[in-house]
């Protein structure tokens, strides 16, 4: 049985080590990185939200309301922004729809992280940049 992590506990790292389940709340515009489609999305579980980068055919496969299981995902900086993604070694799969509670704050991508003074390989939270996503504002 794989250990699932709550989104509030994810920490930036250069490793594909994140197994989590969350619901997709919103999708941004389709972009191209070279020949590959990408699309930024907002995902959340009942502890936190985070920006998730969809890649290739993931962009069309997932819709708001889909519950996604991420295996071996990575939470790291991509062009200066902090995103969660499946990456080459990870896998994102739709396992359901609708029936998952979520919160939109904190947003783990809207937190400033700094290297841990005691362990330079680790990151720790320094400050909250915004309580919720500045790209996908909450729907009220």
């Amino acid at each position, binding site marked *: 049985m794989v250990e699932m992590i709550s989104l509030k506990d994810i920490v930036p790292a250069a490793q594909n080590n994140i197994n989590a389940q969350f619901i997709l709340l919103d999708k941004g515009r389709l972009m191209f990185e070279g020949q590959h489609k990408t699309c930024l999305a907002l995902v959340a579980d009942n502890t936190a939200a985070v920006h998730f980068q969809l890649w290739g*055919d993931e962009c069309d496969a997932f819709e708001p309301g889909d519950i996604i299981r991420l295996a071996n995902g990575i939470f790291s900086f991509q062009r200066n922004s902090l995103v969660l993604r499946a990456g080459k070694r990870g896998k994102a799969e*739709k396992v359901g729809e609708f029936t998952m509670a979520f919160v939109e704050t904190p947003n783990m991508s809207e937190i400033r992280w700094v290297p841990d003074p005691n362990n330079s390989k680790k990151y720790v939270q320094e400050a909250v940049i915004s309580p919720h996503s500045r790209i996908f504002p909450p729907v009220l």
Partner: protein
Amino acid sequence: MASKLIQIASHEAENPIEVSLREAFEFLQAQLRPPFPLKIPTPPEYLNLNRAILYGIFCEPHLAKVHIKHLHGKITDGYSFFTNTLTKVVNDLYSKLVDLAKIQLIWVTTEMVCVSAIGIDGLLVALLRQTVSGDFSEGNLWLCSELVSLFWAKWDCLLEEEPLVLTSALYTFLRLLSDHYRLSSNSKLEVLKQKEIDFCVRMLRQQFHLCLKIGRDLVRILQDLAHVPEFQAIWKDLLLNPGEFKTKEFHDISQLYLSRTSNRYLLLRITPEMEIQLRFLLTHVKFGSQKRYQAWFARKFLCLPEREALVIDIVRFICCSHHPPNEIIQSAIIPRWAVIGWLLKSCRKNYVEGNAKLALFYDWLFFDERLDSIMNIEPAILLMVHSIPKYIDMTHTLLEFLFLLMDNYDVERKDKIKHGVLSAFCMLVRKGVVHSFDSLINCDALSPYLKQRLGGLFICMNASVSKELQPAQAVHSLNLPKTSSVETQNNITGKLRISRAMKDLSPCP
């Protein structure tokens, strides 16, 4: 080579039911061809054999007859496991099944009816629930057509073994017919409509004692078909000549009014997927955080203009079939009235809005505190009261509609309806759902006419509390005097008037 059972989209996880069936099939494939092994399987082997044969029937249509013969030879549990597994497939996978598998599903269901399988009623109900109101896609119309043909063809057998399932079919097809009558015609639809009409008329004319079991919602959905020639005569007999139904215990339509409709019927018009999402919304989502969920629900189930008809069934489902416990009522979870308010505001067609409001108030009209649940009438009062500060138009249109119903729904049984509405109001105050109706009567934004009507009603209310009317007794001794044709004409025009009035009501902003 076996074909696929379901369509799996890219990046979609495997489905556990499909996996268990496929694995059983792959494991036992060699034993699924004659000569079949004579060895008696152990209990786990027996279940696996059932799964394997089921998968074979779905995915090897050309060998279906071989598979079913095999099944008949091996069965020891009255087909209970096999039928229950089929029911699970329908509830969880129907929309994903490939077309060939859907055809096989109807075929094997018919076979299960023929052998009177244990659990066949559950399977048929599961299939009926997959027909969707307001869905005119080819796939949905195909399912309606296959099912109505199945119920017609297996009439005698079902009447003997599972008569109640025929009433479920009646409720479903009556409701579907009112949709199918609003669609511009084509020859395919004409054939389907005729099959649905023939089945419903046969039920109402030949098995009325069974139809009675549906209760008051039978009248609600029949009323929507009063303009259809085949139902005009039935409607007239319901109001005028109850004896025509040759059912000893039936003397007057008010007997139907006063009998509460069981959940089993109201659930029929909601697919399991909708039910899961609605119950989740009303159990887990906090008031204030519902917007995204509502948008997802609407995108999935109410996206096309015709789909709006579904709102009527959802309102009825929320009022009658989803009764949250006190912990939820007292929590921050979105209340039922707020969801109904959202649904009513999303209606664009006047007839849908009118019918949805009727669905909301229907139990008010015949409320009897000894038989009816306060939970059925609670959403309407809370929606009216809570809409006062910001959505007075909602309060207005609902109250106006309630008085319209009291005046016109059934002019000949106006007193009974007035009594029902009064009982509903009394009960709501007595049980503390609202402390009083002061907020309504003293609301400045409410029209003087509505205030006056409310005032009049509450005077009667105080009087009736002291008098303690007893409507149920009146039903037992129902031997109403024969109505004159003039009065009846008034009654029928009264009903027509209400349907016109519903159309005239301006939609919510």
